[in-house]
Protein backbone atom coordinates (compact mmCIF):
# COMPACT_ATOMS: atom_id res chain seq x y z
CA UNK A 1 0.00 0.00 0.00
CA UNK A 2 2.73 2.39 0.95
CA UNK A 3 4.69 2.01 -2.24
CA UNK A 4 1.60 2.44 -4.34
CA UNK A 5 0.63 5.56 -2.43
CA UNK A 6 4.04 7.10 -2.85
CA UNK A 7 4.21 6.31 -6.50
CA UNK A 8 0.85 7.82 -7.28
CA UNK A 9 1.46 10.92 -5.21
CA UNK A 10 -1.34 10.79 -2.71
CA UNK A 11 -4.05 8.22 -2.99
CA UNK A 12 -6.35 9.95 -0.51
CA UNK A 13 -6.58 12.97 -2.73
CA UNK A 14 -7.34 10.82 -5.72
CA UNK A 15 -10.44 9.45 -4.08
CA UNK A 16 -13.14 11.98 -5.03
CA UNK A 17 -13.89 14.35 -2.20
CA UNK A 18 -17.66 14.60 -2.47
CA UNK A 19 -18.10 17.15 0.29
CA UNK A 20 -15.57 19.48 -1.31
CA UNK A 21 -17.23 19.01 -4.68
CA UNK A 22 -20.63 19.95 -3.28
CA UNK A 23 -19.18 22.99 -1.55
CA UNK A 24 -17.45 23.99 -4.75
CA UNK A 25 -20.69 23.90 -6.70
CA UNK A 26 -22.55 25.85 -4.00
CA UNK A 27 -19.99 28.61 -4.29
CA UNK A 28 -20.23 28.36 -8.07
CA UNK A 29 -23.94 29.13 -7.79
CA UNK A 30 -23.25 32.10 -5.51
CA UNK A 31 -20.76 33.53 -8.00
CA UNK A 32 -22.54 32.72 -11.22
CA UNK A 33 -26.14 33.71 -10.44
CA UNK A 34 -25.45 37.45 -10.07
CA UNK A 35 -23.23 37.42 -13.17
CA UNK A 36 -25.87 35.50 -15.11
CA UNK A 37 -28.48 37.96 -13.90
CA UNK A 38 -26.42 40.93 -15.12
CA UNK A 39 -25.95 39.49 -18.60
CA UNK A 40 -29.47 38.16 -19.04
CA UNK A 41 -31.09 41.35 -17.81
CA UNK A 42 -28.91 43.57 -19.97
CA UNK A 43 -30.44 42.07 -23.13
CA UNK A 44 -33.98 42.20 -21.78
CA UNK A 45 -36.31 44.77 -23.35
CA UNK A 46 -36.95 47.62 -20.98
CA UNK A 47 -40.71 47.34 -21.28
CA UNK A 48 -42.04 44.77 -18.87
CA UNK A 49 -38.61 43.65 -17.73
CA UNK A 50 -39.96 43.29 -14.25
CA UNK A 51 -43.11 41.36 -14.97
CA UNK A 52 -41.57 37.95 -15.67
CA UNK A 53 -39.26 35.53 -13.92
CA UNK A 54 -35.97 37.35 -14.31
CA UNK A 55 -33.85 34.22 -14.34
CA UNK A 56 -35.41 33.05 -17.59
CA UNK A 57 -34.10 34.82 -20.70
CA UNK A 58 -36.74 36.94 -22.38
CA UNK A 59 -37.97 35.64 -25.73
CA UNK A 60 -37.59 39.06 -27.26
CA UNK A 61 -34.06 39.65 -25.98
CA UNK A 62 -32.22 42.31 -27.94
CA UNK A 63 -29.27 44.64 -27.83
CA UNK A 64 -31.29 47.87 -27.78
CA UNK A 65 -29.95 48.87 -24.37
CA UNK A 66 -26.40 48.36 -25.58
CA UNK A 67 -27.09 50.75 -28.43
CA UNK A 68 -28.46 53.25 -25.95
CA UNK A 69 -25.35 53.01 -23.76
CA UNK A 70 -23.01 53.26 -26.73
CA UNK A 71 -24.80 56.43 -27.83
CA UNK A 72 -24.46 57.94 -24.36
CA UNK A 73 -20.83 59.06 -24.68
CA UNK A 74 -19.65 55.58 -23.81
CA UNK A 75 -16.68 55.81 -26.16
CA UNK A 76 -15.53 59.04 -24.53
CA UNK A 77 -15.45 57.37 -21.11
CA UNK A 78 -13.80 54.34 -22.62
CA UNK A 79 -11.09 56.53 -24.15
CA UNK A 80 -10.52 58.28 -20.81
CA UNK A 81 -10.20 54.93 -19.06
CA UNK A 82 -7.77 53.66 -21.69
CA UNK A 83 -5.65 56.82 -21.45
CA UNK A 84 -5.30 56.83 -17.68
CA UNK A 85 -4.75 53.07 -17.55
CA UNK A 86 -2.07 52.95 -20.25
CA UNK A 87 -0.13 55.97 -18.98
CA UNK A 88 -0.30 54.90 -15.35
CA UNK A 89 0.81 51.36 -16.08
CA UNK A 90 3.65 52.31 -18.42
CA UNK A 91 5.08 54.89 -16.01
CA UNK A 92 4.59 52.62 -13.01
CA UNK A 93 6.37 49.69 -14.59
CA UNK A 94 9.18 51.87 -15.89
CA UNK A 95 10.01 53.62 -12.61
CA UNK A 96 9.48 50.41 -10.62
CA UNK A 97 11.77 48.23 -12.71
CA UNK A 98 14.50 50.83 -12.24
CA UNK A 99 13.86 51.00 -8.53
CA UNK A 100 13.68 47.22 -8.16
CA UNK A 101 16.92 46.82 -10.07
CA UNK A 102 18.64 49.34 -7.82
CA UNK A 103 17.19 47.71 -4.71
CA UNK A 104 18.41 44.26 -5.66
CA UNK A 105 21.80 45.20 -7.07
CA UNK A 106 22.98 48.04 -4.90
CA UNK A 107 23.18 48.12 -1.17
CA UNK A 108 23.42 51.78 -0.26
CA UNK A 109 21.67 53.21 2.74
CA UNK A 110 19.53 55.36 0.43
CA UNK A 111 18.29 52.34 -1.48
CA UNK A 112 17.59 50.33 1.65
CA UNK A 113 15.67 53.24 3.17
CA UNK A 114 13.67 53.58 -0.03
CA UNK A 115 12.72 49.92 0.03
CA UNK A 116 11.77 50.18 3.69
CA UNK A 117 9.53 53.12 2.92
CA UNK A 118 7.84 51.20 0.09
CA UNK A 119 7.19 48.24 2.38
CA UNK A 120 5.63 50.58 4.92
CA UNK A 121 3.67 52.13 2.07
CA UNK A 122 1.88 48.83 1.50
CA UNK A 123 -0.09 49.60 4.63
CA UNK A 124 -1.11 53.17 3.80
CA UNK A 125 -4.82 53.25 3.06
CA UNK A 126 -5.57 55.01 -0.20
CA UNK A 127 -8.74 56.52 1.25
CA UNK A 128 -6.84 58.43 3.90
CA UNK A 129 -5.08 60.52 1.27
CA UNK A 130 -8.07 61.54 -0.76
CA UNK A 131 -8.75 64.86 0.97
CA UNK A 132 -5.14 66.07 0.95
CA UNK A 133 -4.80 64.89 -2.65
CA UNK A 134 -7.89 66.87 -3.51
CA UNK A 135 -6.29 69.90 -1.83
CA UNK A 136 -2.87 69.46 -3.40
CA UNK A 137 -4.14 68.77 -6.91
CA UNK A 138 -6.54 71.72 -6.73
CA UNK A 139 -3.67 73.97 -5.66
CA UNK A 140 -1.59 72.66 -8.54
CA UNK A 141 -4.41 73.38 -10.98
CA UNK A 142 -4.79 69.70 -11.78
CA UNK A 143 -8.25 69.16 -10.33
CA UNK A 144 -10.63 67.73 -12.91
CA UNK A 145 -7.87 66.58 -15.27
CA UNK A 146 -6.85 63.07 -16.23
CA UNK A 147 -3.42 63.81 -14.74
CA UNK A 148 -5.11 64.08 -11.35
CA UNK A 149 -6.07 60.42 -11.73
CA UNK A 150 -2.80 59.23 -13.22
CA UNK A 151 -0.35 60.69 -10.72
CA UNK A 152 -1.75 59.21 -7.49
CA UNK A 153 -2.56 55.94 -9.27
CA UNK A 154 1.12 55.58 -10.10
CA UNK A 155 2.17 56.44 -6.55
CA UNK A 156 -0.09 53.86 -4.97
CA UNK A 157 0.90 51.14 -7.41
CA UNK A 158 4.59 51.59 -6.65
CA UNK A 159 5.11 49.68 -3.36
CA UNK A 160 3.63 46.38 -4.47
CA UNK A 161 5.05 46.62 -7.98
CA UNK A 162 8.56 47.23 -6.67
CA UNK A 163 8.19 44.37 -4.21
CA UNK A 164 7.09 41.90 -6.89
CA UNK A 165 9.72 43.00 -9.40
CA UNK A 166 12.48 42.99 -6.79
CA UNK A 167 11.54 39.46 -5.74
CA UNK A 168 11.78 38.43 -9.35
CA UNK A 169 15.04 40.21 -10.18
CA UNK A 170 16.58 38.65 -7.08
CA UNK A 171 16.21 35.27 -8.79
CA UNK A 172 18.30 36.31 -11.81
CA UNK A 173 21.62 34.51 -11.37
CA UNK A 174 24.32 36.83 -10.06
CA UNK A 175 26.77 35.35 -12.55
CA UNK A 176 24.90 36.96 -15.43
CA UNK A 177 25.43 40.40 -13.92
CA UNK A 178 29.04 39.64 -13.06
CA UNK A 179 29.92 38.42 -16.52
CA UNK A 180 28.34 41.47 -18.13
CA UNK A 181 30.22 43.65 -15.71
CA UNK A 182 33.46 42.02 -16.73
CA UNK A 183 32.58 42.79 -20.32
CA UNK A 184 32.29 46.42 -19.31
CA UNK A 185 28.54 46.71 -19.74
CA UNK A 186 27.12 49.78 -18.03
CA UNK A 187 24.39 49.46 -15.44
CA UNK A 188 21.90 51.14 -17.73
CA UNK A 189 22.63 48.73 -20.55
CA UNK A 190 22.27 45.84 -18.13
CA UNK A 191 18.86 47.16 -17.19
CA UNK A 192 17.68 47.08 -20.77
CA UNK A 193 19.51 44.05 -22.12
CA UNK A 194 19.42 41.79 -19.07
CA UNK A 195 16.97 42.83 -16.35
CA UNK A 196 13.99 43.85 -18.49
CA UNK A 197 14.12 40.90 -20.93
CA UNK A 198 14.53 38.38 -18.13
CA UNK A 199 11.80 39.97 -16.01
CA UNK A 200 9.25 39.91 -18.78
CA UNK A 201 6.86 37.49 -17.08
CA UNK A 202 6.89 39.59 -13.91
CA UNK A 203 6.48 42.80 -15.90
CA UNK A 204 3.45 41.39 -17.73
CA UNK A 205 2.03 40.26 -14.41
CA UNK A 206 2.39 43.58 -12.57
CA UNK A 207 1.34 45.43 -15.71
CA UNK A 208 -1.93 43.51 -15.92
CA UNK A 209 -2.52 43.73 -12.20
CA UNK A 210 -2.00 47.49 -12.09
CA UNK A 211 -4.06 47.97 -15.24
CA UNK A 212 -6.95 46.23 -13.57
CA UNK A 213 -6.61 48.41 -10.49
CA UNK A 214 -6.56 51.67 -12.44
CA UNK A 215 -9.28 50.54 -14.83
CA UNK A 216 -11.64 49.69 -12.00
CA UNK A 217 -10.71 52.59 -9.69
CA UNK A 218 -13.67 54.55 -8.42
CA UNK A 219 -12.60 56.75 -5.50
CA UNK A 220 -10.00 58.88 -7.32
CA UNK A 221 -12.31 59.68 -10.27
CA UNK A 222 -15.19 60.38 -7.90
CA UNK A 223 -13.23 62.94 -5.90
CA UNK A 224 -10.66 64.28 -8.33
CA UNK A 225 -12.73 64.80 -11.48
CA UNK A 226 -16.04 66.46 -12.11
CA UNK A 227 -16.80 67.26 -15.73
CA UNK A 228 -18.38 64.64 -18.01
CA UNK A 229 -15.53 64.88 -20.53
CA UNK A 230 -13.08 63.64 -17.85
CA UNK A 231 -15.33 60.81 -16.73
CA UNK A 232 -13.93 57.28 -16.68
CA UNK A 233 -15.92 54.07 -16.99
CA UNK A 234 -16.51 53.12 -13.33
CA UNK A 235 -17.72 56.63 -12.59
CA UNK A 236 -19.87 56.58 -15.72
CA UNK A 237 -21.62 53.48 -14.39
CA UNK A 238 -22.61 55.48 -11.38
CA UNK A 239 -23.86 58.39 -13.43
CA UNK A 240 -25.63 56.06 -15.89
CA UNK A 241 -27.46 54.68 -12.90
CA UNK A 242 -28.80 58.12 -12.15
CA UNK A 243 -29.42 58.91 -15.81
CA UNK A 244 -31.18 55.69 -16.86
CA UNK A 245 -32.79 55.32 -13.44
CA UNK A 246 -35.50 52.65 -13.78
CA UNK A 247 -34.11 51.39 -17.07
CA UNK A 248 -32.26 48.62 -15.27
CA UNK A 249 -31.38 46.71 -18.47
CA UNK A 250 -29.52 49.77 -19.78
CA UNK A 251 -27.61 50.21 -16.51
CA UNK A 252 -26.58 46.56 -16.59
CA UNK A 253 -25.66 46.81 -20.28
CA UNK A 254 -23.26 49.57 -19.24
CA UNK A 255 -21.85 47.26 -16.57
CA UNK A 256 -21.27 44.54 -19.16
CA UNK A 257 -19.71 46.94 -21.66
CA UNK A 258 -17.35 48.41 -19.07
CA UNK A 259 -16.22 44.92 -18.07
CA UNK A 260 -15.83 43.56 -21.59
CA UNK A 261 -12.25 44.80 -22.20
CA UNK A 262 -11.04 43.31 -18.92
CA UNK A 263 -12.95 40.12 -19.61
CA UNK A 264 -11.09 39.71 -22.88
CA UNK A 265 -7.84 40.21 -20.97
CA UNK A 266 -9.00 37.62 -18.46
CA UNK A 267 -9.79 35.06 -21.12
CA UNK A 268 -6.43 35.44 -22.84
CA UNK A 269 -4.14 36.35 -19.98
CA UNK A 270 -5.74 34.68 -17.00
CA UNK A 271 -2.60 32.94 -15.89
CA UNK A 272 -0.55 36.14 -15.76
CA UNK A 273 -3.38 38.19 -14.35
CA UNK A 274 -4.10 35.70 -11.63
CA UNK A 275 -0.47 35.11 -10.71
CA UNK A 276 0.04 38.85 -10.48
CA UNK A 277 -2.59 39.21 -7.83
CA UNK A 278 -0.69 37.13 -5.35
CA UNK A 279 2.85 37.52 -6.54
CA UNK A 280 3.72 39.91 -3.74
CA UNK A 281 2.05 37.95 -1.00
CA UNK A 282 2.41 34.27 -1.47
CA UNK A 283 6.12 33.91 -1.86
Amino acid sequence: MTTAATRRGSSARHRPNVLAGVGGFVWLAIIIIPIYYIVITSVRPQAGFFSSNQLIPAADSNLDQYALVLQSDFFLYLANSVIITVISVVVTVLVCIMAAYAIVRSNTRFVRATFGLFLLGLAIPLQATIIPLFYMLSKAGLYDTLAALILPSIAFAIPLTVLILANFIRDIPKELFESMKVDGTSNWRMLFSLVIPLSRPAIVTVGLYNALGVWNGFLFPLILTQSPDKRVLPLSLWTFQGQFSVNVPAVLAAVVLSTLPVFVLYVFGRRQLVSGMTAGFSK
Partner: protein
Amino acid sequence: MTTNREAGVTRKTRHAGPSGWMAAPALAFFIVFAILPLLVALYLSFTNWDAISDPVWVGFDNWPKVLGDPVTITALLLSLKIIVFSWVVQTPISLLLGVFTAGRQRYRAILAAIFFLPLILSSAAIAIAFKAILDPNFGLGASLGLPFLNQDWLGDQNLILYVVVFIIAWQFVPFHTLIYQGGVRQIPASLYEAAEIDGANRWQQFWSITLPQLRYTIVTSSTLMVVGSLTYFDVIFVLTAGVPGSGIRILPIDMYITGFSANQMGQASVIAIMLCVIGLVLALGLTKFSGFTKMTSQQEGL
Protein backbone atom coordinates in the same frame (compact mmCIF):
# COMPACT_ATOMS: atom_id res chain seq x y z
CA MET B 1 28.45 54.42 -1.78
CA THR B 2 29.01 50.75 -0.99
CA THR B 3 29.16 49.11 2.40
CA ASN B 4 32.37 47.58 3.70
CA ARG B 5 31.04 44.11 3.05
CA GLU B 6 30.75 44.77 -0.64
CA ALA B 7 33.71 47.06 -1.10
CA GLY B 8 36.11 44.22 -1.85
CA VAL B 9 33.92 42.85 -4.58
CA THR B 10 33.23 46.12 -6.26
CA ARG B 11 36.82 47.24 -6.35
CA LYS B 12 37.75 44.19 -8.33
CA THR B 13 35.03 44.72 -10.97
CA ARG B 14 34.78 47.69 -13.25
CA HIS B 15 31.43 48.93 -12.01
CA ALA B 16 29.72 49.17 -8.67
CA GLY B 17 26.05 48.20 -8.54
CA PRO B 18 23.60 50.49 -10.25
CA SER B 19 23.37 53.94 -8.82
CA GLY B 20 20.79 54.35 -6.09
CA TRP B 21 19.41 57.19 -8.15
CA MET B 22 17.67 54.65 -10.30
CA ALA B 23 15.23 54.31 -7.44
CA ALA B 24 14.70 58.06 -7.31
CA PRO B 25 11.81 58.43 -9.80
CA ALA B 26 9.72 55.82 -8.02
CA LEU B 27 10.62 57.32 -4.68
CA ALA B 28 9.70 60.80 -5.88
CA PHE B 29 6.29 59.71 -7.11
CA PHE B 30 5.65 57.84 -3.92
CA ILE B 31 6.72 60.66 -1.62
CA VAL B 32 4.84 63.40 -3.46
CA PHE B 33 1.56 61.55 -4.01
CA ALA B 34 1.42 59.10 -1.12
CA ILE B 35 3.56 60.30 1.79
CA LEU B 36 3.21 64.07 1.41
CA PRO B 37 -0.63 63.77 1.39
CA LEU B 38 -0.44 62.21 4.84
CA LEU B 39 1.44 65.27 6.12
CA VAL B 40 -0.98 67.56 4.33
CA ALA B 41 -3.87 65.68 5.95
CA LEU B 42 -2.25 66.32 9.32
CA TYR B 43 -1.97 70.01 8.48
CA LEU B 44 -5.55 70.20 7.24
CA SER B 45 -6.77 68.54 10.43
CA PHE B 46 -5.68 71.71 12.25
CA THR B 47 -7.63 73.98 9.93
CA ASN B 48 -11.15 74.81 8.92
CA TRP B 49 -11.48 74.37 5.21
CA ASP B 50 -14.68 74.42 3.17
CA ALA B 51 -13.00 73.21 -0.05
CA ILE B 52 -13.49 76.62 -1.69
CA SER B 53 -11.67 79.35 0.23
CA ASP B 54 -8.27 78.89 1.86
CA PRO B 55 -7.87 76.73 4.97
CA VAL B 56 -7.97 78.68 8.23
CA TRP B 57 -5.71 77.54 11.07
CA VAL B 58 -7.76 76.62 14.14
CA GLY B 59 -5.26 74.62 16.14
CA PHE B 60 -6.63 71.63 17.98
CA ASP B 61 -10.29 72.59 17.58
CA ASN B 62 -11.21 69.79 15.19
CA TRP B 63 -9.69 66.93 17.13
CA PRO B 64 -11.87 66.89 20.25
CA LYS B 65 -14.85 67.80 18.08
CA VAL B 66 -14.41 64.74 15.89
CA LEU B 67 -13.15 62.29 18.49
CA GLY B 68 -15.93 63.27 20.87
CA ASP B 69 -18.64 63.12 18.25
CA PRO B 70 -20.97 60.15 18.74
CA VAL B 71 -21.23 59.90 14.94
CA THR B 72 -17.49 59.19 14.74
CA ILE B 73 -17.67 56.63 17.52
CA THR B 74 -20.59 54.91 15.83
CA ALA B 75 -18.72 54.91 12.52
CA LEU B 76 -15.65 53.47 14.21
CA LEU B 77 -17.65 50.71 15.87
CA LEU B 78 -19.44 49.95 12.64
CA SER B 79 -16.08 49.72 10.86
CA LEU B 80 -14.83 47.29 13.49
CA LYS B 81 -18.02 45.26 13.08
CA ILE B 82 -17.51 45.09 9.32
CA ILE B 83 -13.87 44.07 9.85
CA VAL B 84 -14.78 41.26 12.26
CA PHE B 85 -17.76 39.98 10.27
CA SER B 86 -15.82 40.12 7.01
CA TRP B 87 -12.94 38.20 8.52
CA VAL B 88 -15.19 35.57 10.07
CA VAL B 89 -17.09 35.05 6.84
CA GLN B 90 -14.27 35.34 4.32
CA THR B 91 -11.40 33.50 5.98
CA PRO B 92 -12.95 30.02 6.25
CA ILE B 93 -14.54 30.24 2.82
CA SER B 94 -11.36 31.50 1.16
CA LEU B 95 -9.21 28.93 2.92
CA LEU B 96 -11.44 26.03 1.92
CA LEU B 97 -11.82 27.30 -1.63
CA GLY B 98 -8.05 27.82 -1.77
CA VAL B 99 -7.49 24.18 -0.84
CA PHE B 100 -10.25 23.17 -3.23
CA THR B 101 -8.89 25.07 -6.23
CA ALA B 102 -5.33 23.98 -5.49
CA GLY B 103 -6.40 20.46 -6.43
CA ARG B 104 -5.32 19.42 -9.91
CA GLN B 105 -8.65 17.88 -10.92
CA ARG B 106 -9.96 19.19 -14.20
CA TYR B 107 -13.38 20.21 -12.87
CA ARG B 108 -11.73 22.21 -10.13
CA ALA B 109 -9.61 24.12 -12.63
CA ILE B 110 -12.76 25.00 -14.56
CA LEU B 111 -14.61 26.06 -11.42
CA ALA B 112 -11.61 28.13 -10.36
CA ALA B 113 -11.70 30.07 -13.62
CA ILE B 114 -15.29 31.03 -12.83
CA PHE B 115 -14.63 31.64 -9.13
CA PHE B 116 -12.09 34.31 -10.01
CA LEU B 117 -14.47 36.24 -12.26
CA PRO B 118 -15.50 38.80 -9.61
CA LEU B 119 -11.85 39.89 -9.53
CA ILE B 120 -12.22 41.62 -12.85
CA LEU B 121 -15.40 43.49 -12.01
CA SER B 122 -15.10 47.02 -10.69
CA SER B 123 -16.59 47.85 -7.30
CA ALA B 124 -18.98 50.20 -9.05
CA ALA B 125 -20.17 47.42 -11.35
CA ILE B 126 -20.63 45.00 -8.46
CA ALA B 127 -22.53 47.53 -6.35
CA ILE B 128 -24.81 48.51 -9.23
CA ALA B 129 -25.52 44.90 -10.12
CA PHE B 130 -26.42 43.98 -6.54
CA LYS B 131 -28.47 47.11 -6.16
CA ALA B 132 -30.53 45.97 -9.14
CA ILE B 133 -30.76 42.40 -7.90
CA LEU B 134 -31.77 43.43 -4.38
CA ASP B 135 -34.25 46.12 -5.36
CA PRO B 136 -37.44 45.49 -3.37
CA ASN B 137 -39.70 46.46 -6.26
CA PHE B 138 -37.85 45.51 -9.43
CA GLY B 139 -35.23 43.07 -8.20
CA LEU B 140 -34.78 39.34 -8.48
CA GLY B 141 -36.54 38.58 -5.21
CA ALA B 142 -39.63 40.48 -6.25
CA SER B 143 -39.69 38.84 -9.66
CA LEU B 144 -39.38 35.30 -8.33
CA GLY B 145 -42.16 35.93 -5.84
CA LEU B 146 -40.26 34.26 -3.03
CA PRO B 147 -41.11 36.13 0.18
CA PHE B 148 -37.81 35.40 1.99
CA LEU B 149 -35.87 36.76 -0.97
CA ASN B 150 -38.13 39.74 -1.33
CA GLN B 151 -37.03 42.02 1.47
CA ASP B 152 -35.97 45.62 1.65
CA TRP B 153 -32.34 44.49 1.74
CA LEU B 154 -30.81 47.95 1.42
CA GLY B 155 -33.37 49.99 3.31
CA ASP B 156 -33.68 47.82 6.40
CA GLN B 157 -31.16 48.89 9.04
CA ASN B 158 -30.88 45.36 10.40
CA LEU B 159 -30.34 43.73 7.04
CA ILE B 160 -28.03 46.09 5.22
CA LEU B 161 -24.98 45.28 7.34
CA TYR B 162 -25.25 41.60 6.42
CA VAL B 163 -25.95 42.47 2.80
CA VAL B 164 -22.78 44.55 2.72
CA VAL B 165 -20.73 41.82 4.39
CA PHE B 166 -22.05 39.36 1.81
CA ILE B 167 -21.22 41.62 -1.14
CA ILE B 168 -17.74 42.33 0.21
CA ALA B 169 -17.26 38.58 0.53
CA TRP B 170 -18.55 38.04 -3.01
CA GLN B 171 -16.03 40.55 -4.26
CA PHE B 172 -12.99 39.63 -2.19
CA VAL B 173 -13.22 35.91 -1.43
CA PRO B 174 -11.83 35.20 -4.93
CA PHE B 175 -8.73 37.26 -4.18
CA HIS B 176 -8.10 35.52 -0.87
CA THR B 177 -8.88 32.14 -2.44
CA LEU B 178 -6.08 32.92 -4.84
CA ILE B 179 -3.68 33.66 -1.98
CA TYR B 180 -4.61 30.41 -0.24
CA GLN B 181 -4.38 28.47 -3.47
CA GLY B 182 -0.83 29.72 -3.89
CA GLY B 183 -0.07 28.84 -0.28
CA VAL B 184 -1.47 25.32 -0.57
CA ARG B 185 0.44 24.64 -3.77
CA GLN B 186 3.69 25.47 -2.01
CA ILE B 187 3.18 22.82 0.65
CA PRO B 188 5.63 20.04 -0.22
CA ALA B 189 3.87 16.90 -1.42
CA SER B 190 6.32 14.89 0.67
CA LEU B 191 4.49 15.96 3.82
CA TYR B 192 1.26 14.43 2.59
CA GLU B 193 3.01 11.33 1.40
CA ALA B 194 4.57 10.85 4.80
CA ALA B 195 1.23 11.41 6.49
CA GLU B 196 -0.40 8.81 4.29
CA ILE B 197 2.24 6.28 5.12
CA ASP B 198 1.35 6.99 8.72
CA GLY B 199 -2.29 6.33 7.83
CA ALA B 200 -3.62 9.86 8.33
CA ASN B 201 -6.95 10.45 6.66
CA ARG B 202 -7.87 13.50 4.66
CA TRP B 203 -9.35 15.31 7.66
CA GLN B 204 -6.25 14.69 9.79
CA GLN B 205 -4.03 15.81 6.95
CA PHE B 206 -5.96 19.05 6.67
CA TRP B 207 -5.65 19.82 10.37
CA SER B 208 -2.08 18.73 10.92
CA ILE B 209 -0.43 19.62 7.62
CA THR B 210 -2.43 22.03 5.50
CA LEU B 211 -3.56 24.38 8.24
CA PRO B 212 -0.23 24.70 10.09
CA GLN B 213 1.62 25.06 6.79
CA LEU B 214 -0.72 27.88 5.80
CA ARG B 215 0.07 29.85 8.94
CA TYR B 216 1.84 32.67 7.14
CA THR B 217 -0.67 32.65 4.34
CA ILE B 218 -3.43 33.11 6.90
CA VAL B 219 -1.55 36.06 8.40
CA THR B 220 -0.99 37.66 5.00
CA SER B 221 -4.57 37.17 3.90
CA SER B 222 -5.98 38.33 7.23
CA THR B 223 -3.85 41.45 7.25
CA LEU B 224 -4.97 42.39 3.76
CA MET B 225 -8.54 41.56 4.66
CA VAL B 226 -8.61 43.57 7.87
CA VAL B 227 -6.94 46.65 6.43
CA GLY B 228 -9.06 46.30 3.31
CA SER B 229 -12.32 46.18 5.24
CA LEU B 230 -11.30 49.16 7.33
CA THR B 231 -10.98 51.31 4.26
CA TYR B 232 -13.87 49.85 2.34
CA PHE B 233 -15.62 52.59 0.42
CA ASP B 234 -16.63 52.05 -3.20
CA VAL B 235 -19.29 49.38 -2.95
CA ILE B 236 -20.94 50.83 0.14
CA PHE B 237 -20.92 54.29 -1.39
CA VAL B 238 -22.56 53.21 -4.64
CA LEU B 239 -24.88 50.77 -2.91
CA THR B 240 -26.26 53.15 -0.34
CA ALA B 241 -26.16 56.41 -2.26
CA GLY B 242 -29.76 57.51 -2.53
CA VAL B 243 -30.91 55.11 0.17
CA PRO B 244 -31.93 57.56 2.85
CA GLY B 245 -30.75 56.99 6.40
CA SER B 246 -28.84 53.89 5.46
CA GLY B 247 -26.98 52.41 8.40
CA ILE B 248 -23.61 51.87 6.79
CA ARG B 249 -21.72 55.00 7.77
CA ILE B 250 -18.35 53.34 8.32
CA LEU B 251 -15.28 55.53 8.82
CA PRO B 252 -14.39 56.15 5.15
CA ILE B 253 -18.01 57.00 4.35
CA ASP B 254 -18.12 59.22 7.44
CA MET B 255 -14.98 60.95 6.16
CA TYR B 256 -16.53 61.46 2.73
CA ILE B 257 -19.79 62.85 4.10
CA THR B 258 -18.00 65.13 6.58
CA GLY B 259 -15.64 66.40 3.92
CA PHE B 260 -17.47 66.51 0.64
CA SER B 261 -21.10 66.79 1.71
CA ALA B 262 -20.80 68.90 4.86
CA ASN B 263 -17.71 70.76 3.58
CA GLN B 264 -15.87 70.23 6.86
CA MET B 265 -12.57 69.25 5.30
CA GLY B 266 -10.65 69.92 8.51
CA GLN B 267 -12.77 67.51 10.50
CA ALA B 268 -12.73 65.01 7.66
CA SER B 269 -8.92 65.17 7.74
CA VAL B 270 -9.01 64.13 11.38
CA ILE B 271 -10.92 61.03 10.30
CA ALA B 272 -8.39 60.49 7.50
CA ILE B 273 -5.55 60.50 10.04
CA MET B 274 -7.55 58.12 12.23
CA LEU B 275 -7.99 55.75 9.28
CA CYS B 276 -4.33 55.88 8.50
CA VAL B 277 -3.19 55.29 12.07
CA ILE B 278 -5.66 52.46 12.66
CA GLY B 279 -4.68 50.89 9.33
CA LEU B 280 -0.96 51.05 10.09
CA VAL B 281 -1.41 49.79 13.64
CA LEU B 282 -3.55 46.87 12.47
CA ALA B 283 -1.19 45.96 9.64
CA LEU B 284 2.01 46.25 11.67
CA GLY B 285 0.37 44.72 14.75
CA LEU B 286 -0.85 41.68 12.87
CA THR B 287 2.47 41.08 11.19
CA LYS B 288 4.52 41.67 14.37
CA PHE B 289 2.17 39.65 16.52
CA SER B 290 2.58 36.67 14.30
CA GLY B 291 6.34 37.03 13.95
CA PHE B 292 5.91 37.60 10.26
CA THR B 293 8.16 40.55 9.66
CA LYS B 294 9.69 39.61 6.36
CA MET B 295 8.01 38.55 3.18
CA THR B 296 10.14 35.46 2.97
CA SER B 297 9.45 31.82 2.47
CA GLN B 298 8.33 29.87 5.51
CA GLN B 299 9.78 26.67 4.19
CA GLU B 300 13.48 27.29 4.58
CA GLY B 301 15.29 24.00 4.79
CA LEU B 302 12.48 21.80 3.55
